[in-house]
């Protein structure tokens, strides 16, 4: 965390007002650092201009790893390392390997994706988030604007926030 950053935090209590506000504020050239909400607000990522998450790709790649590892493991173990005839089938016969392959695909895909999520979101048990507003996990949406990264003055941003429907505007230093 950088030392001593100045923020203006706008508080909204309705998600529809918030969505409009984000659009208006961004149109006026204000850079919003992040919006904190108690629940996922649909469409907020679009108005904030975020690109779609690539986590599905990560999940697919982890799944593919699971599929290949499972198949390789079973074919190597039963087909080459210790071949045995079971039920008169080939040593490495594919159909009975499918259930384990499926399970390991799902397992690796799920675990890998969640681990990736935690890493890219920088989430760790000992890390504390910046407390812009503690009510943002309860019933308020908090919009954090970093003053240093904006060209407009504090007063200008304050009035833009007020016009957009913010209920409260607080100044915070972290």
């Amino acid at each position: 965390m950088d030392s001593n950053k100045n923020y203006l935090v706008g508080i909204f209590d309705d998600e529809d007002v918030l969505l409009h506000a984000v659009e208006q504020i961004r149109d006026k050239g204000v850079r919003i650092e992040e919006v904190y909400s108690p629940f996922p607000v649909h469409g907020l990522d679009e108005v904030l201009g975020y690109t779609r998450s690539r986590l599905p790709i990560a999940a697919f790649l982890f799944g593919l790893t699971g599929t290949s590892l499972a198949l390789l493991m079973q074919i190597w173990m039963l087909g080459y390392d210790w071949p045995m005839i079971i039920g008169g089938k080939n040593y490495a016969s594919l159909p009975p390997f499918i259930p384990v392959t499926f399970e390991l695909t799902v397992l690796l895909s799920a675990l890998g994706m969640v681990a990736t999520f935690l890493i890219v979101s920088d989430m760790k048990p000992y890390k504390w988030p910046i407390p812009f507003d503690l009510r943002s996990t309860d019933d308020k949406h908090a919009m954090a604007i970093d003053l240093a990264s904006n060209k407009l003055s504090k007063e200008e941003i304050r009035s833009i926030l007020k016009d957009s429907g913010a209920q409260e505007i607080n100044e915070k230093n972290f």
Partner: protein
Amino acid sequence: MQVSSAIREPLITGGKTMHDVSEDISRQVEGKPAPLWWIAFGISFVLLCYGFYCVCMLEWVGIGVWGLNKTVGWAWDITNFVWWVGIGHAGTLISAILLLFRQRWRMSINRAAEAMTIFAVICAASFPAFHMGRLWVGFYWALPLPNAFGSLWVNFNSPLLWDVFAISTYFTVSLVFWYMGLIPDFAVIRDRAVRAGNKVRAQIYNGLSFGWSGGARTWMRYESVALILAGLSTPLVLSVHTIVSMDFATSVIPGWHTTIFPPYFVAGAIFSGFAMVLTLLLVTRKVFKLEDYITIYHIELMNIIIIITGSIVGIAYITEFFIAWYGQVPAESYAFINRATGPYWWAYWSMMTCNVISPQLFWIKKIRTSIVATFVLSIVVNIGMWFERFVIIVTSLHRDYLPSSWAMFYPTRFDVGQYLFTFGLFFTAFLLFAKFFPVVNMAEIKSIIKSTSEKKHHG
């Protein structure tokens, strides 16, 4: 700014605001547990301790302490295993399949149902684990680990091994899915603790929440993770009971060797799982005063699922019987006639009454919206589903190919004790969950409160 739909009943009653949701759900985590909670916890813990003694005896002496014999080599252990796994399925159905179908009523019940899944799968897994006798060497028999038997690997052709992979994957993925859902709610409790000045609780719940911030970027990724986990869990849950049913279906034993088993088992699993969800939630909503979140409408919808799955199970029973006759295999026909009229007729007819007839009562609106009737029937259904597995397993085995090998199964107190052990484990774990974790998903409820909450009437 609350809007209520004209055609749908409100999912959340009592005119709740977002702050009310945080208050109502966090209250039980923050306060001292009710006397009723202590009584329930005491009983569960005593069961757990007695069960633990039985499990220790089993490990010390061997599975000879059970009532198994040379003919009936699988009885209560596998019955209980299938029963518990089946119960787990409702949690995943609610959290994953209903999420994909965008059923918003799942939001009030998914947290508790998923917790139930996790504890039920732990209970289930304990049976095959202990059935291996020597638990500590069981790992080599169940997992593909390099070992001292000349690197003899596990048999990947066996459904029993598929079960190992299916159950452990199911448990892990369900746990991860459940925990992902809990993360934002732990942050709610953390921030409330910070505001109340409770540093210890804030630290613990921040750790549990992985330092959740609630930023829009994180929420966006979080939603994408939740959707994919739901997509992965849906085929996973279907695969688990399919594979469990293959433990039976792939063996050449009359009464087991049928291709109808996978769908029949999956329907039965959801059927019994919903019954257990209802049993648990009817008590939970009363004890934690969640009547506004888990409404009669929720209960009614769950009862409708019970009618559907119960009817599928009923049709499966009849189909099995029909095919046994139509297939004209004498051994197969005998197995089914013997089920209904042989020495285990009482188990068969208990199953038919509890599973086929009793859920049909839910066609009557008065019954499916009555809390007492639902509670009683939910227990009846679970008794019936236990008998279903008992009937499939024991009646198919007890008439062996040679009449000289015919035998009956009589449980010992260690069979009963092991079953009680899982009850103790399940309820102890569920009560601890209900005390320390938020039992309703607050973040999801908050996301729908504007559109589905009852209008607030100011005087």
